[in-house]
């Protein structure tokens, strides 16, 4: 996996320089969490384009196959990815990917997680357990994340501290109460993630 080579400094990492194109640099952040927690809603509220969707037949995406024999029987098995885009500057674009919610599609996440700046794990206050697996996923892989508690109809019955305790989150992981439908609220969750990354980077540099 690309990100784990901690000794190597970055400069030579880009395999094929294509400097002559005016293509912007691209980075991504993942929006994860349980099924129906509001991932696509969050992507849509901050994206400059209506969320786009790609659907992948699982046979092609996940299995190592050389031919298509039998694919007809599996054609209904697809995994959908919703994503959006934020143009940061003329030469830098941020993509937001809503990860598939169903646990059985998680092999897709490894691919998705490679090269991500970090992740937002959305939690539904009515069923926080549906996001436990997403938290585990990012913790195990050392991928930085913040938790966004998406209120039902914008209501937040529990304070962030209580949710942090219920999720057994380490201190450096921020917990934010949010409303995924609101652009500014979703934006603030993303900013919190970036701030957390900056804090970690400057903290690491100072020590």
């Amino acid at each position, binding site marked *: 996996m690309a990100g784990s080579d901690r000794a190597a400094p970055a400069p030579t990492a880009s395999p094929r320089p*294509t400097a002559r194109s005016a293509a912007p640099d691209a*980075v*991504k952040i993942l929006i994860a969490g349980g099924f129906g927690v509001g991932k696509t809603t969050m992507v849509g509220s901050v994206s400059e384009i209506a969320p786009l969707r790609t659907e992948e037949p699982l046979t092609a995406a996940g299995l190592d196959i050389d031919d298509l024999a039998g694919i007809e029987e599996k054609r209904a098995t*697809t995994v959908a990815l919703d994503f959006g885009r934020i143009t*940061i500057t003329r030469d830098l674009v941020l993509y937001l990917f809503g990860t598939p919610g169903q646990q059985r599609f998680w092999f897709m996440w490894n*691919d998705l997680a*490679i090269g991500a700046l970090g992740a937002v794990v959305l939690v539904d206050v009515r069923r926080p357990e549906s996001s436990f697996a997403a938290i585990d996923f990012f913790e195990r892989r050392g991928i930085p994340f913040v938790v966004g508690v998406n209120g039902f109809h914008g209501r937040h019955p529990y304070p962030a501290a209580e949710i942090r305790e219920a999720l057994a989150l380490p201190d450096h992981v921020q917990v934010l109460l949010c409303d995924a439908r609101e652009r*500014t609220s979703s934006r603030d969750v993303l*900013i919190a993630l970036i701030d957390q990354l900056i804090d970690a980077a400057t903290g690491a540099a100072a020590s």
Partner: protein
Amino acid sequence: MTGGDAGGRLVRPFTLTGGRTRPSRADFTLITTVTACDPQPDRAARPQPEHLRILRLCARPVAVAEVAARLDLPVSVVVILLSDLVEADRITARPPHPVNLATPDLDLLQKVRDGLGRL
């Protein structure tokens, strides 16, 4: 979520790739940015319809995931078609910004933060 009518469409796209299920180049990611070369090489064979659709889409730089979504084709199919276009010198592909979690790029993070702040 999708209705049942979507099923057939997701298999048939591989007919667009001549039955190939793998790209000749393995280095496309979802956020690899592709851009049509301008001018296009004129010596080359005329591109097939799906290739032409891609070329129109990436007249300006566009991410692989976006090409797939706008063509309503699986990414796995689109990267095969994109490989063809790279090999025909019709598009260039720019890999995503390398992210090394162990050595974060502070300048990049600050740029992203500033950009989000302007939203």
